[in-house]
C-alpha cells in the first residue's frame, strides 16, 4: 500500500483534532479517504456521499489534478502522493 499525505482545510480540522495533515495508506483516493474517515470519525459525511461519491461542496486533488478529471475515487495513489481536500467556495450578492 502507498502512504499518502492528506491535507485538511481549516474548516475540517475540528474533525482531525486540529491536524492540518494526516498520513494515510491506500492505493486509491477512495481507499485513502475511507481510511482517513475511520481514523477521524465524522469526516466521512463531510467529504463523501452515502453512495460513496465526493460531495458537491468538496474538491479532491491528487497533487495538481482534480480527481473529477481523473478516475474519481478510483484514481490511483502513488507513494508520497499529496491529497488535498479543497472546500468549494461560492456565494453571491443576491
Amino acid at each position: 500500500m502507498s502512504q499518502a499525505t492528506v491535507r485538511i482545510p481549516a474548516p475540517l480540522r475540528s474533525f482531525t483534532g486540529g491536524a492540518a495533515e494526516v498520513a494515510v495508506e491506500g492505493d486509491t483516493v477512495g481507499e485513502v479517504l475511507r481510511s482517513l474517515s475511520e481514523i477521524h470519525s465524522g469526516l466521512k459525511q463531510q467529504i463523501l456521499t452515502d453512495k460513496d461519491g465526493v460531495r458537491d461542496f468538496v474538491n479532491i486533488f491528487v497533487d495538481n489534478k482534480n480527481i473529477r478529471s481523473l478516475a474519481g475515487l478510483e484514481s490511483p495513489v502513488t507513494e508520497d502522493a499529496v491529497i488535498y481536500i479543497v472546500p468549494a467556495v461560492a456565494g453571491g450578492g443576491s
Partner: protein
Amino acid sequence: MSPLRAVETASTQLWLPAVLQHELSRFAQASYPLEACGLLVGRAGDTKIDTVRVVPARNLNLERPEDRYLLDPQDFLATDRAARAEGLEIVGIWHSHPDHPARPSGTDLESAWEGYSYLIISTTADGAAALRSWRLVGDRFVEEAVEQEDTEP
C-alpha cells in the same frame, strides 16, 4: 422580560491592515459591475485572525457573474500551497457584492464553511462602499469586527 438572546457578534476579530483594505477595494472595484472573489492568507489565532496577504482568484461562475461567484479551486490550491510554504494558511474568503450591501446573502449562507472569515466588499459605480466580515456559526452568519491596527502591545 425579553428572552435571553445570543450575542450576534463573532468571538474573533479580523485584523486587516489599511494597506490591504485598499488593495482589496482595488481588486473588488476592478471587476465592477461583476463580482470579484479571492482569499485571505495569514494566521488564525483563537480570537484574532491576522491577514498578511489578500489574493485575487478567478470567478468560474460565467452564467451569473454579476451576482454569483464560484472560486476556482485551482487558485485555492495554489494559494494554499504558497501560504503553507511560508508558515501561513488560508484564513478567509473575500468577495464583492456589486450594488448590494456588504451582508451575506442566502446564496452565501448555502455555501459557507465554519472556520473562515467571510469578508464582503460592497461595490458601486462610485467605488467600494463598505467592507464587513462575517463568520458562520452553526446555521447563520454573525458579524466579525474588522480592525485596521494591531491593538495588542
